[in-house]
């Protein structure tokens, strides 16, 4: 019983649904990548909040679940490309953790597309912008999370 699709306009206010997205970015690549996007003054969706972690391998299921519990509509986990992790194998650990998270999130009844794992290097500002834009579009299509109390649908 996955989520039912919800209209992206909230009934009460008639306002357009603007998703709340939490992005976990590793210090050494993805966070720097987001910085690069900023320094280059790229235009991309502003409706996400970055949380910097030392490595993507640190992002255990608890992190993602907590974000969803608090009402995030989508959660992005981003780290260095394979072979580039500052801690050598951290992003392999991230993959393992993410697989577990995905199973739990599915059992909880969320659409699994609400969570996403990506690799963005420090140089790839444009890729960061693309990833965010794509993810925002995806979540906008999915509508508000069933746990997001700010959007009464």
């Amino acid at each position, binding site marked *: *019983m996955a989520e039912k699709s919800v209209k992206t306009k909230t009934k009460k206010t008639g306002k357009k649904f603007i998703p709340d997205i939490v992005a976990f970015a590793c210090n050494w690549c993805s966070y720097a990548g987001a910085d690069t996007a900023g320094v280059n003054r790229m235009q991309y969706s502003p409706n996400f909040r970055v949380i910097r972690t030392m490595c993507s391998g640190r992002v255990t299921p608890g992190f993602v679940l907590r974000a969803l519990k608090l009402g995030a509509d989508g959660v992005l986990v981003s780290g260095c490309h394979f072979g580039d992790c500052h801690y050598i194998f951290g992003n392999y650990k991230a993959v393992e953790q993410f697989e577990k998270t995905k199973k739990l999130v599915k*059992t909880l*009844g969320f659409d699994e597309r609400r969570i996403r794992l990506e690799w963005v290097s420090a140089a790839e500002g444009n890729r960061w912008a693309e990833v965010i834009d794509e993810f925002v579009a995806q979540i906008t299509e999915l509508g508000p999370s069933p746990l997001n109390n700010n959007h009464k649908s």
Partner: protein
Amino acid sequence: MEMAVTELKKNKALLCLECGKCTAVCPISAYDREFSPRRMLAEGIFYGGGDLISDKRLWSCLTCLLCSERCPVDVRYSEYMKGVREIAQKQGNWGEPSHGSALLHIMEMMTAPKLNQNRTGWINGNIKTAEKSDVLFFTGCLPYYEDFFAKDFDFHPISIAVDTVRILNHLKIKPAVLPNERCCGHDLYWLGKIDEFNKLRELNLKEFERSEAKTIVTACAECAYTLKELYVKKLGLNSIEVKHISELVAENIDRFKFKDQNLKITYQDPCRLGRHLNIYDSPRDAMKAVPGMDLNEMPHNKRGSICCGTTNWMNCGASSSRIQKARLTEAKNTGADTLVTACPKCQIHFRCSQCGKGKDKEKTDIKLKDFTNIIASAIDG
């Protein structure tokens, strides 16, 4: 002050003689010299709970009731802990949850009425369930434990659910399984999160009512305790009866035909099933009815049984690990080759303890099985 008056009175804590018997038997105190139930009571009585509220050790108590077993004046220490936690938690104090809080987050997420879970994927073609039935199988958190632990610990918590339904099918029962059942709320209750517990209870009771079931069967000692005591008894419901699967098997033992098993086992009394619910004989009687099943008791058994070392996914640390190692060694020393438990969580914690490369690995190396696995695999046909 608030605490001194209500919590202390409610749980007979004011009667405490400060004899220290509780600290002497407490499994946590055995390994953590700073943890003393006697002192925590004295703090509550004489100092209004001041330091206790912010003490990290407040969250270490397993609420296993072993101390109440010995207390000469019957202080309800576990309940006292729960009460103090309720106050502490409201003031922003919290323990150290294990597994990055993941499991506690899942429980709290289930309090959201709009959540529409996808939790029945384990029901396969070999077992029979029904849309509506007089009997409801309450799965508990098994689907989540499967997602979380199956890969790391090389066992399938969900096999407990599958085997329970197999046992029920053998008794010609096709149980209903709720697609959007919530966590029973056991852990949140004992951690003092009473508002969240009430939400879960309300949502579950609505589902129970809709299902029109008369009997609820569970394979988890904690669910059994929670549903029996905190749902049915506390609210005075007389329309539903709750049974742990071991009770159902023991009551209907004549209707089973078992294959010879040739197995040497020992049994871990889960504290919720044992000291909390006084169910000691059903699982034993049921297993003893299987031919070739040789049950060896551990020195600490029944009322004196020792907990698996962690409760509520909270404050799991060195003492937990040492309790587990000691308990597994005790089990192994009985000469049994399998340790049977009747609570999925006991097994998870024990398996966790067996991971890794400690030098005493051999001493704790014993197979672990759930009660339902043992019965289901002994069923003939």
